C-alpha cells in the first residue's frame, strides 16, 4: 500500500490541482445561481437528458468500479468481471421500474414518493432511515478508500487525504448544491471515460491489437492457469454469487443518490433518455474493465501481485505507469499521475452525490416535514440542508480519520447495496404499483430490510471471521452477501405490515399517485436554472404548462 508513498508525486498533485480548479470554478458559478430548494436539491430540474446521463454515470461509477474491479480481475480473473456485468444490468431495473415514475411523482427525495399517499411522518422517517443507512455506509467506505488511495498514489498522508476529499465535497454542496454536484459528476464522467479509453487502447496495443490475446496472455501470467478464466477464484460459494447478483441488480434501483438524480431533469422523457445515456457510458466503461483487469495481468504479470495491494486497487494505476513507459520514465509518471487524478475526481463526484442525498433526508424529510410539519419557509429548508451537508461531511471525515486506514470497509459497499435492495427498492416499487400498500407496510418493510441486512452482514464471515468462535451459533449461516435472504424478507415485511392494517387514505390516494406517476400529470416543474443563468421565462412557462394542473 505504501508503494508510492516514499515521496509526494508532484506531477499528480499538479493534475489534481487542475481538476480541482475546474470543479471549484464550476462551483463558484453555480453558487451565484442556486437559491431555491428546487435549485439546491434538483438543480432547478434544468439538466438535459445527456447531461443527467453523464452525471448518473459520474455519480454511480465509484473508485470501487474503476480501481476495485480492475484489481479484482487482476487478482481473481473472471469473477471480477461478474461485478461489471451486475453493475450494468441493474440499470434495466431503474429504467423499467423506477426512473420515470420517480421523476413524475417526486420532488427532492425518495421519501416524497414513498410518503405521497401515506401518513407523512412515519413514512418519511422510514425513507430517511433507509437513505441515511445507504448513504452513510457508502460514504464511509468511499472516504476511507479515498484516503488509502490518495495516500498510495500521491504520497500525502491518510488523514490529510481524507480531510481534503471531505473539504472539497462540502464546498461543492454547501456552495453549489445539486447544480455544482451534477457538473462535478459530468466532468468526472468525461475524465474517467477518456482515461479508460486511452488506457484500453494502449493495453490493446501492448497485446498486439487482438482482444482475445488479453485472455491468453493473462492466463499465461497467472499461476492459476485455466482456472483464471473460470468463475470461482474469488466467489467460491455459488449461493453467495447469486446473493451478490440479487443485491447488485435490485440495489442499484434503491440507491437514493442515483434515484435523486431523476429529479434534476424537466420531464419523464428526459429521465428516460438520461438512463440510456448512462447505460451507454457505464456499459462501455465496464466492457473496458476487461482491458484494465485482464490487461493488468497480461502486462504486469504475477510479479506485481504484491505491489497492487490487498484488494488489487493499484493494478490500474500500475498498468497505466507500465504502458506509459514504465516506472521512472516521464510517460510512466505522467500516466500514473493522470490515473491518480482521475481516481480522485471519481471519489469526489461520488461522495458529493451521497452527501447531497443524505442532506435531503435530513433537511427535507426530517426537519421540514417531520419536525416542522411542512410549515417552514423554503429559505429555512435550504439553510438546514447546507448545515446538514456540512455536518454529515464533517462526521464522515471524523469517522474515517478516527477509524483510520485499518477500518474494515470491504463489507460497507456491499451493505449499502443490500440495504438499498432490501429496504428501499421493495417499498418504493410497492408504493408505486400496489394499491393496498400502506404506511404500516412501508415502515415494516424498510425496518425489516435495513436491520436484517445489517444483522446478516454483522454475523457474516466478512465481519465475524470464524463462526466457530461463537460456539457454532452461526455455523449454519456463512453468506458474505445477505441479498438472497434480506430482499425477500424486505418484501415480506412490506406485505405483512400492509395486510395487518387497513389504511383507507393510502388506498384512496393510490389513484392520484398512480395516474401521476404514469402520465406525468402534475409533476413538479423546474426553475429554469442552468449553469450559465436562468432560462427565459417563456420556455419555462411553456414547460410548466404542459405538466401543471391549474389550481381552481
Amino acid at each position, binding site marked *: 500500500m505504501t508503494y508510492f508513498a516514499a515521496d509526494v508525486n508532484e506531477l499528480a498533485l499538479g493534475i489534481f490541482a487542475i481538476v480541482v480548479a475546474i470543479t471549484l470554478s464550476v462551483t463558484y458559478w453555480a453558487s451565484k445561481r442556486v437559491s431555491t430548494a428546487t435549485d439546491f436539491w434538483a438543480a432547478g430540474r434544468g439538466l438535459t437528458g445527456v447531461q443527467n446521463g453523464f452525471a448518473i454515470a459520474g455519480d454511480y461509477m465509484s473508485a470501487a468500479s474503476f480501481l476495485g474491479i480492475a484489481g479484482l480481475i487482476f487478482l481473481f480473473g473472471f469473477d471480477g468481471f461478474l461485478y461489471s456485468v451486475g453493475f450494468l444490468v441493474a440499470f434495466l431495473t431503474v429504467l423499467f421500474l423506477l426512473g420515470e415514475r420517480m421523476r413524475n411523482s417526486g420532488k427532492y427525495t425518495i421519501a416524497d414518493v414513498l410518503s*405521497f399517499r401515506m401518513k407523512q411522518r412515519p413514512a418519511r422517517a422510514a425513507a430517511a432511515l433507509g437513505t441515511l443507512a445507504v448513504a452513510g455506509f457508502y460514504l464511509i467506505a468511499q472516504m476511507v478508500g479515498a484516503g488509502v488511495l490518495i495516500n498510495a498514489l500521491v504520497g500525502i498522508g491518510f488523514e490529510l487525504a481524507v480531510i481534503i476529499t471531505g473539504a472539497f465535497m462540502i464546498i461543492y454542496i454547501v456552495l453549489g448544491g445539486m447544480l455544482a454536484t451534477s457538473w462535478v459528476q459530468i466532468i468526472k464522467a468525461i475524465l474517467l471515460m477518456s482515461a479508460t479509453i486511452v488506457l484500453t487502447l494502449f493495453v490493446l496495443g501492448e497485446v498486439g491489437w487482438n482482444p482475445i490475446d488479453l485472455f491468453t496472455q493473462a492466463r499465461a501470467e497467472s499461476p492459476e492457469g485455466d482456472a483464471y478464466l473460470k468463475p470461482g477464484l474469488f466467489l467460491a460459494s455459488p449461493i453467495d454469487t447469486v446473493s451478490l447478483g440479487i443485491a447488485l441488480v435490485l440495489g442499484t434501483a434503491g440507491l437514493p443518490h442515483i434515484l435523486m438524480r431523476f429529479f434534476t431533469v424537466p420531464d419523464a422523457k428526459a429521465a428516460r433518455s438520461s438512463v440510456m445515456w448512462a447505460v451507454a457510458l457505464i456499459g462501455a466503461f465496464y466492457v473496458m474493465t476487461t482491458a484494465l483487469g485482464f490487461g493488468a495481468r497480461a502486462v504486469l504479470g504475477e510479479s506485481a501481485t504484491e505491489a497492487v495491494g490487498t484488494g488489487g486497487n493499484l493494478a490500474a494505476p500500475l498498468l497505466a505507469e507500465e504502458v506509459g513507459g514504465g516506472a521512472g520514465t516521464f510517460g510512466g509518471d505522467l500516466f500514473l499521475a493522470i490515473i491518480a487524478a482521475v481516481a480522485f475526481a471519481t471519489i469526489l463526484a461520488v461522495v458529493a452525490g451521497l452527501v447531497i442525498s443524505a442532506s435531503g433526508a435530513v433537511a427535507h424529510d426530517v426537519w421540514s416535514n417531520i419536525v416542522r410539519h411542512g410549515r417552514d419557509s423554503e429559505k429555512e429548508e435550504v439553510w438546514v440542508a447546507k448545515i446538514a451537508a456540512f455536518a454529515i461531511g464533517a462526521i464522515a471525515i471524523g469517522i474515517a480519520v478516527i477509524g483510520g486506514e485499518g477500518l474494515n470497509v470491504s463489507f460497507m459497499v456491499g451493505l449499502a447495496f443490500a440495504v438499498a435492495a432490501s429496504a428501499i427498492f421493495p417499498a418504493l416499487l410497492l408504493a408505486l404499483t400496489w394499491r393496498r400498500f400502506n404506511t404500516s407496510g412501508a415502515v415494516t418493510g424498510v425496518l425489516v430490510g435495513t436491520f436484517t441486512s445489517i444483522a446478516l452482514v454483522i454475523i457474516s464471515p466478512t465481519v465475524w471471521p470464524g463462526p466457530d468462535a461463537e460456539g457454532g451459533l452461526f455455523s449454519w449461516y456463512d453468506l458474505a452477501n445477505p441479498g438472497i435472504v434480506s430482499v425477500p424478507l424486505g418484501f415480506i415485511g412490506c406485505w405483512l405490515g400492509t395486510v395487518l392494517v387497513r389504511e383507507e387514505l393510502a388506498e384512496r390516494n393510490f389513484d392520484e399517485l398512480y395516474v401521476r406517476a404514469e402520465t406525468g400529470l402534475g409533476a413538479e416543474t423546474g426553475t429554469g436554472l442552468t449553469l450559465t443563468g436562468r432560462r427565459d421565462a417563456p420556455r419555462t412557462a411553456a414547460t410548466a404548462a404542459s405538466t401543471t394542473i391549474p389550481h381552481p
Partner: protein
Amino acid sequence: MATTESRMAGGSDHHPEIDWQAAERSPEFRELIKRKRAFVVPATIFFLAWYFGFIILAGYAPDFMGREFITDGMTVGYALALTQFLMVWGLGWWYLRKADRVFDPLAERAAEVALAAGTPGRARDDRFKRGAAEAPATTDEEAPR
C-alpha cells in the same frame, strides 16, 4: 381529513380538484397501463431470467463457463457476459423507442382526459361546461416537449 391535508404540505402537492379515481378508470389510462405492462412485464422477466441464468451458471457450473470455444482464450462465460451488455443496450433502446412512439402519446391522452374530467362530485352538466371551456386550451398545452 383536514389534518391529513396539512401534513402533506411538504412533499408534492395533492390536487383534490382532479377526479383521480375517474382518471384511473378512464379507458385512455387503462390502455396506457395495458400497453406498458405488455412490454415492461415480459421485458423485466426476460432480463432477470437472462441475468440470473448467467449468475447461476457462474456459481454452479464454473467448468462449463470456463470452456473455450471458437478460439483459444474465449470462454463461454465471457461470451455470455458480453450478451448481457448487448441485452441491456438492446432492451433499453427498444424501450426508449416504444416509450416515444406508444407510451408517451397514450400518457398524454390519459392526462388530457383526467384534466378535462374535472372535479369529483360536481354536477354532471357542470363538468361538461368545464370540459368545454378548458379542454381545448389544455389540449394545446399538453403537447409533448
